[in-house]
């Protein structure tokens, strides 16, 4: 296998103008606004896709094809009473949802979302500012995103411990084991592509796969791709691993006592994490984006595909039992991931 270092990226990004602080601010606001909106729209898409797969119509009554349902839900979330239960630790209880939402958006700071552009000159104050595609182009972008998603564990965990509710604490304990266990699989599975590319930067990953479908890393690392997808489902709390707030067993898990916008923040964080996992999968395994022509449309389609895949799986599979979840992680996925890393290393050395 060929070991190439793509460190010399100046040739790749030479036409990009200087990134200013104002540009980063604008980018941060765009990410916040658009991803929050997508999270809202995502609930509608999820309900519609699930409905069609189950031969129903889904939301139909509010607006054309139920499109205004998002606004109705939003009004409901914002105007609902913000309840803090009696014996709860008030401060931690109120902070916990903010941690989930904040870490999800901080993780998005290091991934390329939406194309870069320059604001037209005729707009006052901010005219002529270059807005980069990555808000913060770290050279260890992948590790940063994974680390930030790992820190997102504290949202559910503190929520469960602060709310003085048995369902809450069981849900929080499940969250802790599930996230901690599957982080291992995510990290190990993505290690093999990192070894091949020899960099932790998303830009280098993108450059390494330039030049068509044949260069995509998914062909070199199919096992890592499958493992990453499975672990990604577990880390974003999607079916078949949605045990954290499984209604039949633990009511709503860590979110049991939450209402209104604080519950909504958990939800937005979860959807933002879904988008982050989709972006990582698209860039690391499916070739990423291209800066020329309609390249950005392609990555949007790839991200949308992974988002759709999550809904598709939810419609197709029942969820697993907690002990099956742990069995799958430690006895199946982790050994495969380790073997994959070892084999990749041997092939690269020989």
């Amino acid at each position, binding site marked *: 296998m060929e070991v190439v270092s793509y460190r010399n990226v100046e040739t790749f990004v030479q036409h990009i103008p200087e990134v200013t602080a104002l540009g980063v601010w604008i980018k941060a606001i765009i990410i916040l606004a658009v991803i929050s909106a997508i999270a809202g729209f995502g609930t509608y898409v999820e309900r519609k896709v699930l409905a069609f797969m189950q031969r129903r119509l889904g939301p139909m009554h509010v607006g054309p094809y139920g499109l205004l349902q998002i606004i109705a839900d939003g009004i409901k979330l914002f105007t609902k009473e913000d309840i803090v239960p009696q014996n709860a630790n008030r*401060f931690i209880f109120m902070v916990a949802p903010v941690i989930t939402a904040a870490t999800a958006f901080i993780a998005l700071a290091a991934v390329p979302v939406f194309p870069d552009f320059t604001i037209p000159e005729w707009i006052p104050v901010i005219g002529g500012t270059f807005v980069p595609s990555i808000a913060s182009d770290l050279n260890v972008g992948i590790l940063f995103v994974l680390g930030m998603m790992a*820190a997102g564990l504290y949202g559910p965990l503190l929520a469960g411990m602060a709310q*003085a509710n048995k369902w809450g*604490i069981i849900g929080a304990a499940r969250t802790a084991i599930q996230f901690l266990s599957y982080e291992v699989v995510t990290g190990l599975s993505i290690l093999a592509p990192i070894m091949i590319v020899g960099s932790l930067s998303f830009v280098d990953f993108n450059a390494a796969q330039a030049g068509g479908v044949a260069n995509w890393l998914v062909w070199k690392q199919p096992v890592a791709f499958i493992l990453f997808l499975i672990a990604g489902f577990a880390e974003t709390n999607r079916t078949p691993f949605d045990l954290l707030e499984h209604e039949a067993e633990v009511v709503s898990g860590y979110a049991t006592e939450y209402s209104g916008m604080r519950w909504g923040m958990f939800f937005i964080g979860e959807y933002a994490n879904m988008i982050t996992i989709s972006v990582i999968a698209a860039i690391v395994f499916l070739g990423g984006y291209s800066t020329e022509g309609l390249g950005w449309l392609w990555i949007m389609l790839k991200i949308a595909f992974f988002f759709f895949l999550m809904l598709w799986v939810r419609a197709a599979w029942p969820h697993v039992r907690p002990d099956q979840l742990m069995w799958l992680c430690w006895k199946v996925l982790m050994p495969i991931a380790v073997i994959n890393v070892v084999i990749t290393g041997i092939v690269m050395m020989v």
Partner: protein
Amino acid sequence: MYEAIAFYLFSALTIGLFLITVMSKNVLYAMTSLAAGMVLISGFFFILGADFLGVVQLIVYVGAVMALYSFAMMFFDATRDIKEKNTPASLVFLLGGLSALVLVLMFAGPIHSEAIQALYPMHEGVGNAQDVGIVLFTKYLVPFEVAAVMLLVAMIAGIILAGKKMDQSLTKDTSVDDEDEILKQKDAK
């Protein structure tokens, strides 16, 4: 300018949060502030340009070590204050004096900053991760291997400690021997 603002903000917040960790009687506050302080310490690494170490701090301390603490805390009632046992005054005096001495030495260190030289300076154009790797696999190879062996020992010990009851399934009904009997019992009900 941004770096100075970030540094002073992070330092004030870190000290404040770690103070809460020490002072608070509520375990939940103590753990939350410790975890938040760990996140802010990774901020210092980012300010210094050591991206890789910052991310490692985030993953190891926030993602793994603190998560294990909090997992152990699940077994306590986290919403109640704990009664602290007061330590003897002489011990407090000794420990306080020692930490004051260490602080003075730490703050006095930069006076001799010209005498301090980096043994393994950063290479231009090489990433953080590569630089750490070069030092780790040349100069510190033996400590690295020892740490690896220690982790392996800890892992095997953990498996043996936890594995004694692994033959039994936690979810299966063991009061009856085979599945048919369970079904018969259900029918009888």
